[in-house]
């Protein structure tokens, strides 16, 4: 399926989490096990597609003065619908994900793609862009969730994988472990693709009097 030359795009090179460092809140919070992470990933992809397509379709009629308000309204209503659907069809997952489904509204990836891409592009490229970013988000989220569930609980998707003799790492059950794993992932990717590393924001050398003036 290649409806647009942009999809499938460079998942690693332009990943919203590891390159743009966006959408971390939900990645850290819902990655304790794979099942809720899968549902969260699907929810984010659905909202991303909807918001990108809707914003792109409306981009020519959207008055500049209320552009952001319209974008947020579209995203927020999509998120509420997703949340209601989860409550009705997947109440268990909805309980695990708690507020993090609602917080997709404030997920920087969604608004970021709407603002930086969908506002300036046609519907089809916007759809491809949404898919690229959604899959990029899902890839990192699912990797972290799989690692945490495997090492913390010895299972994947609630199916026991590791033998009981394998020691469980309780720390994996807590949020900080997601931070460590994400840090390691970013480090690994940037060692592999050094061009992704950002320029240091501050110089280590102290400024001389002359330079300050």
């Amino acid at each position: 399926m290649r409806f647009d030359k942009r999809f499938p795009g460079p998942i690693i090179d332009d990943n919203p989490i590891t390159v743009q460092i966006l959408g971390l809140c939900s990645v850290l919070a819902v990655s304790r096990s794979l099942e809720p992470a899968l549902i969260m990933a699907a929810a984010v992809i659905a909202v991303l597609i909807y918001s990108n397509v809707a914003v792109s379709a409306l981009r020519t009629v959207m008055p500049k003065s209320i552009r952001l308000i319209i974008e947020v309204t579209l995203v927020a209503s999509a998120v509420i619908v997703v949340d209601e659907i989860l409550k009705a069809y997947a109440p268990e997952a909805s309980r695990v994900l708690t507020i993090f489904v609602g917080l997709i509204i404030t997920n920087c990836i969604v608004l970021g793609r709407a603002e930086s891409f969908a506002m300036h592009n046609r519907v089809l490229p916007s759809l491809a862009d949404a898919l690229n970013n959604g899959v990029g988000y899902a890839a990192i989220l699912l990797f972290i969730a799989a690692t945490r569930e495997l090492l913390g609980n010895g299972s994947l998707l609630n199916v026991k994988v590791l033998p009981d003799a394998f020691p469980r790492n309780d720390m994996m059950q807590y949020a900080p472990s997601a931070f460590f794993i994400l840090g390691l992932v970013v480090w690994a990717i940037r060692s592999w693709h050094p061009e992704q590393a950002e320029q240091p924001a501050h110089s280590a050398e102290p400024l001389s009097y002359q330079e300050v003036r």
Partner: protein
Amino acid sequence: MNVDTVPRTLLVAAGVALFCSAMVSLAVHYLRPLQVDMQLLDRNRAILEAAELLPTGEVTDRDIVSRYLNLDARVVDLDTAWFAGGFDARSYDHWRLRDDVEAAGADDGKRYVPVYLVRKAGSLEKIVLPVDGSGMWSTIYGYVALREDLNTITGVTFHRHGETPGVGDRIQDETWLATWYGKRIHDEDGAMRFRVTRDATGPYEVDLISGASVTAEATGELVRTWLGDAGYGPFLEKLDENER
């Protein structure tokens, strides 16, 4: 085409608002009945979990419904401390009445409370009592099951709450809830001794969850309140006399 004129701005704003609100209201309208069913199923599951009546392993919706129907559901009048008639106790939901003041009318869900009796060969084996109270951010709802002595906890669940995800929600952790098992409420003199506390010792105290101590202590406090004189205390005394 200039889209930045005032009339155009208002028109687009109204259009988007209308479309979005229609979408949300349609979704809520069509999904609400399903959600209510799910909540009811979830509540009944919590009752059965507290009573330890669910099979181990995969639990189907059918398991929950059939086992729930086997319970002896009654409504207790907290003012008279005895069973009250005139209710369909199986579907009676005092929490919903409390949330929805308009539907409640005279019964605001504070006086009449449903309890669930588990009987074995006619005699009382367990009683499941709904409890609720303030947690750290939210109201915590749950069920406590007592043994036939009406003084020993044999199961507890907190199925609905809005505590911090990943922190306060560990009050739902099965390992922690298992530490409640066998704890007693009153001592021989009838004094309330049950507590959730740091460095718990003895048959009346449950250790709190480190890192979630406020929420954990709150669960102990709400159980104390409900099982004390202001809650089920007088009713349980009467029931104890009657069952003997």
